[in-house]
């Protein structure tokens, strides 16, 4: 029998259609929301990992510094045997790298400050180099790079150089400043060694085979790594710098210059040698710099001494300041780092700097002239005083420093002015006088820096070129200029900032910002402080680093 009730009228079927539609819609909505959620999660991961391009980079770097201070980790870095040496992170020059897209490392070199007759001097680190390493903005490590195969009998002499991390081959000892764990990593030519990589595979396999084990390293920690730290504690007779010498065999350093070394620290770290340190970093020079224009492990320093000649009508004392600036290895490295930003090609950048440094026709003259301080009446009735520290010819690159500034400013302020003008000068000289790819590198740098919309370089007489160069200095490489100045300061025996609230690097940055906050139109990170510190040096006020080379 056919029953009517099996025939469902359309009207009664509608609710079922509705139900199906609702279910379908819900499913679609669920899938869509899952996808959207996945995308959001993915975006969150991308933005969560700190990188040199993070929009909130400065804020996060400041948070790292604050966390370090709040946890009082500085105390854990201090040598045990002597209080004349202190290790301070170089906060101004963070080096950031991202590993496996999700793990960030920030490296700060630990500057060894040695108290020499009440003045702090930055020591040269021999046979090893110390860093503060911060993993994922949370975990703090003392990172010690050293060569375990170093000859303990090798004597310190005039040619002994600071430990170089370029193409690093050796060990990295990571010591947690928070939980005391130690890890030993092995590198070959700047990369993790093959043997260490194999350990990673073994570690994963072993972890999988031992049920319930999440931390395999706990079972294998039985090796002891020793390290002794020695220092000359005063300027060495070999080259004049204070030396800190690391020794994995704790052999007392011998010097051909008659220096006497003291043991300032010793460590015995229990290391889990077979442990795979998750997402290990490469070396600190890799992965870019947060400070702009860094990455000093990437380029060979080039001597720029022959690029600048002193005008015979200039006071002779300027020669000493000029030499300190052109001999600062950071100068050529900064130039190369800036050139690299255009094509991301290390070789091209390095060659362009070499072409500039080795050009036999280079003839940038450094002279002086009086540029009167000018009182200007503004349209609004106020007055401004225009104090020009120096000027650069946009065609020849010739530099003239203001005689009035040379008369009254400290040597450090004169060096800062020279560095500022040399940046203008090298840019225009390179673009106008070199040929081929090297000239193009400098031209392209102008194009890149000044971002003309149609892709062609701005002509040298582009009306806003001067303002744009200042803007670029302030935006891109003021920290690198400060780094150069800090090196010049060290070579002149200035080891600490006269403003005791900040490091020497920050003080040097303030000196540049004193002018740049006016000429670039951009705000300095700390406008009032940089103005005060800049004036202190330019007017050689009480407490400035002083005038030694150029007296009025």
């Amino acid at each position: 029998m056919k029953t009517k009730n099996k025939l469902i009228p359309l009207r009664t079927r509608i609710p079922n259609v509705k139900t199906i539609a609702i279910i379908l819609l819900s499913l679609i909505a669920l899938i869509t929301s899952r996808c959207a959620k996945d995308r959001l999660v993915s975006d969150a991961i991308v933005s969560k990992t700190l990188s040199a391009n993070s929009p909130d980079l400065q804020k996060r770097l400041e948070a790292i510094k604050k966390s370090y201070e709040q946890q009082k980790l500085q105390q854990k870095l201090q040598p045990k045997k002597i209080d004349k040496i202190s290790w301070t992170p170089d906060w101004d020059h963070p080096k950031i790298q991202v590993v496996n897209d999700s793990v960030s490392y920030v490296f700060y070199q630990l500057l060894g400050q040695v108290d020499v007759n009440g003045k702090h001097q930055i020591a040269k680190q021999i046979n090893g180099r110390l860093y503060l390493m911060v993993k994922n903005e949370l975990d703090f490590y003392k990172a010690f790079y050293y060569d375990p195969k170093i000859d303990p009998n090798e004597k310190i002499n005039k040619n002994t150089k600071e430990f170089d991390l370029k193409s690093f081959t050796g060990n990295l000892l990571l010591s947690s400043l928070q939980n005391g764990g130690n890890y030993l990593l092995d590198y070959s030519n700047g990369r993790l060694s093959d043997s260490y990589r194999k350990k990673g595979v073994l570690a994963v396999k072993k972890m999988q085979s031992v049920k319930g084990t999440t931390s395999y390293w706990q079972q294998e920690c039985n090796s002891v790594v020793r390290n002794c730290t020695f220092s000359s504690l005063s300027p060495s007779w070999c080259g004049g710098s204070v030396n800190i010498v690391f020794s994995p065999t704790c052999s007392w350093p011998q010097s051909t210059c008659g220096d006497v070394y003291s043991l300032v620290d010793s460590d015995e770290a229990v290391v889990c040698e077979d442990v795979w340190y998750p997402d290990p970093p490469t070396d600190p020079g890799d992965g870019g710099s947060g400070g702009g224009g860094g990455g000093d492990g990437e380029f060979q320093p080039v001597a720029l001494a022959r690029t600048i000649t002193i005008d015979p009508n200039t006071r002779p004392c300027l020669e000493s300041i000029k030499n300190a600036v052109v001999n600062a290895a950071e100068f050529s490295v900064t130039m190369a780092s800036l050139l690299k930003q255009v094509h991301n090609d290390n070789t091209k950048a390095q060659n362009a700097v070499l072409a500039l440094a080795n050009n036999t026709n280079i003839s940038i003259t450094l002279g002086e002239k009086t540029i009167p301080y000018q009182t200007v009446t503004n349209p609004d009735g106020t007055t401004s005083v225009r104090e020009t520290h120096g000027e650069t010819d946009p065609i020849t690159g010739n530099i003239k420093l203001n005689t009035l500034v040379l008369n009254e400013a400290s040597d450090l302020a004169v060096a800062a002015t020279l560095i500022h003008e040399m940046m203008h000068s090298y840019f225009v000289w390179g673009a106008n006088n070199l040929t081929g790819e090297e000239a193009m590198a400098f031209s392209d740098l102008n194009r890149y820096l000044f971002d003309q919309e149609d892709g062609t370089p701005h002509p040298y007489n582009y009306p806003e070129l001067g303002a744009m160069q200042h803007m670029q200095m302030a935006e891109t490489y003021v920290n690198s200029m400060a780094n150069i100045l800090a090196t010049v300061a060290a070579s002149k025996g200035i080891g600490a900032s006269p403003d005791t609230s900040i490091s020497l690097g920050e003080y040097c940055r303030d000196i540049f910002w004193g002018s740049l906050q006016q000429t670039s139109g951009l705000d300095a990170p700390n406008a009032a402080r940089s103005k005060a510190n800049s004036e202190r040096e330019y007017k050689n006020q009480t407490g400035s680093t002083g005038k030694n080379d150029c007296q009025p």
Partner: protein
Amino acid sequence: MIKNMIFSIAIVGSAHCIATQNTPELKDESIIINKVIDIVSDKEVRPKSVFISEQLLSNLDRYLTNQEGEKKSDSLSLLIQGKWNYLKEVKSDSYSMAWKQLLLSKAALDKNHVGNKIKADDVRLSTVQFSPDGTKAFVVYSRTSKNITQTTVFFFFEKKNGIWAHTAHYIPFFD
């Protein structure tokens, strides 16, 4: 009554100003400055007015001081040694600090133009320096921010067939 008097004085004053603006040299000055603004505001919205003061000529003095005793062969030096040689006579010990405001003609570029607006008090120019025969002109352009000079440019113009044409412009120095 007093209101009417003030109003009348204001009208007479304005008429006087307009009459003064009509002298041929000031008309040329206006043409030249409008051309400068066309060049410098290439990608920006030109201001409605600019400020002019003689004191900006001190930048020319500063440049000329550099040239003393030096033989240079770059384009800027050649112009000042050549057709614009009269500029060497411009030097003064005391330039006027007074400012005048020049209203600019409205350029077609302004319509639908997307760009940063240049603030009137950030654009400053010197008074235009004409050659004795009235066929050459020179003016200093300065861009400022918060009353601080950020860039200085020298502009050169030449009158050909009764029309002022832009010859060249140069940045005399980077500070």
